[in-house]
């Protein structure tokens, strides 16, 4: 049984992606028997190409995606190069997990509350600095260039890439490389860029690609912070999918394939960019320049890193304040009074949505954990480690844009008569939860001293006993962290819940995003905060439980 688990995991993870792409290809070519269409026909592509907003939507997807990825990577590189190992870096690391667990939609709402013309920044600087007595008529959020959307993505992708970089640093002997560079007269940032970065980038390349693919095709953040006329291609695909006219599903399917091609092209271009940067880097290495700009770069790095962290933390604070705000006139920095009325009004709704959220997240994460533990144990027993090709397969569901295969998956499910709803939503969440649980747990699992298993075995314990009585308890902390990551990923899923749930599965995320168009900040505050708490709670438990269970076991303290 155990040796079949890796294959089963692969099917569970890749199967829906391939099925979804297939499910998009057929309707895109005019084949949708449910709507009485059998094709083949290129009408869907013709309609798509005739859509007046296409050019702008494509440009928006590419510019926001590439810009958000490049900026996030730049900030992470500057912060790590200039500050890793310092107290400031430690402080940043400590707020990393909570920031990382904040769902994209909640962070986007919070950012909108912060930077909107009537947002906190405007209130704090008005009227004494700006002279504004009323919110100015400025298009700060939902701007046509997608800058607010890019900022929203950057605040969420920086912690993700930073976490990946921290994991990579452990494998590239950063201290030795940096020390060598410094004894050769290089300043900190230049030494890091020349001696550590190439090795680190090799390790974080796939996560960077994930950020690019995600940023180019994100839906919830784009619906909250992105432009509306026209929206990004991914948002438009979702709109077409929700159109009462079934024929528009064909256009959505064609759009999904176009989204895939667009992301693949962007990934190809990014790869070419990597080659170009590597060539420039090699030339720079040979110049022997020691870096005169290092002090300035360090300041820029920590400034941008702190700004990114502060934006998310302030965004959360903004959600909290709005959730309890009474009357709040512009330009007052705080409401006239704080009240629980908003919570009384929206509380029952959020609790229902929270129950659904935890049901879906719990089931998806539980299934993911069983599969991941099975795969890792099979890997341990067979002695076969994950190859680079295997790692690519693991990242595949994260590299293929959600908007490229989820519409097809929904169409496929409906056309084969399968019901949409909670069950399929759990399986759809599993596609995204699985890779993160695997990536989160894999390193800790492999770093476990195998001599423990040898000793237990020579003491007469069969493999199953070693697994349950030795390995699992010793790895309780990383297992719970992986569960927390899985729950956070599931809590944040918008598109799979919306499309595969057929609108019948109401989680905190779908409810929060649905509130975006209404603009009721108090309701958004309540839902956004609940969404964040739902993602944070498992992280808190993952920290507290092992500390409690192993309070008398010093060898397991961190």
């Amino acid at each position, binding site marked *: 049984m155990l040796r079949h688990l890796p294959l089963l995991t692969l099917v569970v993870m890749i199967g829906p992606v391939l099925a979804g792409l297939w499910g998009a290809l057929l309707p895109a070519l005019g084949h949708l028997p449910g709507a009485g269409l059998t094709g083949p026909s290129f009408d869907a592509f013709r309609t798509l190409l005739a859509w007046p907003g296409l050019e702008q939507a494509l440009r928006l997807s590419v510019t926001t995606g590439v810009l958000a990825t490049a900026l996030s990577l730049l900030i992470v590189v500057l912060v790590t190069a200039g500050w890793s190992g310092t107290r400031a870096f430690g402080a940043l690391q400590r707020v990393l997990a909570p920031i990382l667990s904040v769902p994209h939609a909640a962070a986007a709402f919070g950012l909108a509350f912060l930077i909107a013309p009537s947002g906190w920044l405007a209130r704090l600087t008005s009227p004494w600095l700006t002279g504004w007595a009323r919110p100015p008529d400025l298009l700060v959020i939902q701007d046509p260039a997608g800058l607010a959307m890019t900022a929203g993505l950057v605040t969420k992708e920086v912690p993700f890439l930073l976490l990946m970089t921290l994991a990579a640093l452990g494998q590239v002997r950063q201290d030795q490389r940096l020390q060598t560079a410094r004894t050769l007269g290089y300043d900190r940032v230049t030494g890091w860029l020349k001696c550590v970065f190439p090795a680190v980038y090799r390790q974080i390349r796939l996560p960077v690609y994930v950020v690019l693919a995600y940023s180019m095709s994100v839906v919830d953040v784009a619906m909250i912070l992105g432009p509306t006329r026209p929206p990004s291609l991914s948002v438009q695909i979702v709109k077409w999918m929700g159109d009462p006219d079934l024929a528009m599903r064909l256009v959505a399917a064609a759009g999904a394939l176009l989204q895939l091609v667009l992301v693949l092209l962007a990934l190809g271009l990014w790869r070419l960019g990597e080659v170009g940067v590597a060539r420039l880097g090699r030339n720079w290495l040979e110049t022997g320049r020691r870096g005169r700009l290092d002090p300035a770069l360090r300041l820029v790095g920590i400034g941008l890193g702190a700004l990114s962290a502060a934006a998310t933390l302030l965004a959360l604070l903004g959600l909290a304040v709005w959730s309890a705000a009474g009357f709040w006139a512009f330009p007052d920095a705080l409401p006239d009074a704080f009240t629980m009325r908003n919570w009384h009004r929206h509380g029952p709704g959020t609790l229902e949505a929270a129950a659904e959220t935890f049901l879906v997240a719990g089931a998806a994460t539980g299934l993911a954990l069983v599969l991941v533990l099975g795969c890792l144990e099979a890997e341990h027993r067979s*002695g076969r480690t994950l190859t680079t090709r295997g790692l690519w397969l693991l990242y595949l569901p994260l590299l293929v844009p959600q908007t490229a295969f989820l519409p097809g998956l929904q169409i496929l499910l409906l056309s084969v008569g399968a019901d949409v709803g909670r069950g399929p939503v759990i399986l759809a969440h599993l596609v995204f939860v699985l890779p993160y649980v695997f990536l989160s747990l894999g390193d800790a699992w492999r770093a476990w001293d195998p001599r423990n298993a*040898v000793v237990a*075995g020579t003491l007469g314990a069969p493999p199953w006993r070693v697994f349950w009585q030795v390995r699992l308890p010793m790895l309780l902390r990383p297992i719970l962290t992986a569960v927390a990551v899985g729950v956070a990923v599931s809590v944040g899923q918008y598109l799979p819940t919306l499309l595969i749930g057929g609108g019948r599965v109401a989680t905190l995320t779908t409810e929060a995003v649905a509130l975006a168009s209404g603009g009721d900040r108090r309701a958004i505050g309540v839902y956004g905060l609940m969404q964040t708490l739902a993602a944070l709670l498992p992280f808190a438990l993952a920290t507290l439980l092992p500390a409690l269970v192993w309070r008398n076991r010093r*060898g397991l303290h961190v």
Partner: protein
Amino acid sequence: MSDVLTLEQVCITDGGQTVIEADCTIAPGDVLTIMGPSGVGKSTLLAFVTGTLKRAFTATGRVLLDGADITALPPHRRQVGILYQDDILFPHMSVGQNLAFGMAPGGTRAERRAAVSAALAEIGLEGFAHRDPATLSGGQAARVQLLRVLLSQPRALLLDEAFSRLDTERRTQIRRLVFDMARDRDLPVLMVTHDAEDAKAAGGRIITLGD
């Protein structure tokens, strides 16, 4: 129980290159020492004997315990105990639970606890059953590890640089304790070390590799 441990024409290769070869017999209560610097394949040989050789290696030859071929048996059915240089006490279990883990199943809870307490008293660690392994000194941890192996009733004992992390005084004590207890139980002992003093103290045959 008196068993003979035999390594019969054992040859371990890595990508076609021979890592280590061994063809020897260890009588009950005897110690065979394999000496050599790091990287000559000493620990790899022990992994072959315990049945935990990595896939990268290819091995031929047999491991016999009192004439019975145990080469194809899984580690938990070989009855071959091992001690490493590091403390491999399971950190989530108390000292007593670590010992009980190694004991053969059977008996009531009270009987097993009594057996653990008696065994701890035998090595001068009376009342240590509830202790956290992380609070033990190096010497105490080494004694508990030895006791855990012996309670699992092995038919042969392997020592993988088992004394190299102990300071000089404790090293002599623990070494004597291990060899005495192994001799008392008529266990064949296969020790790998890079330390000439350990080899000398074992008092048995010495095979030196990789000079």
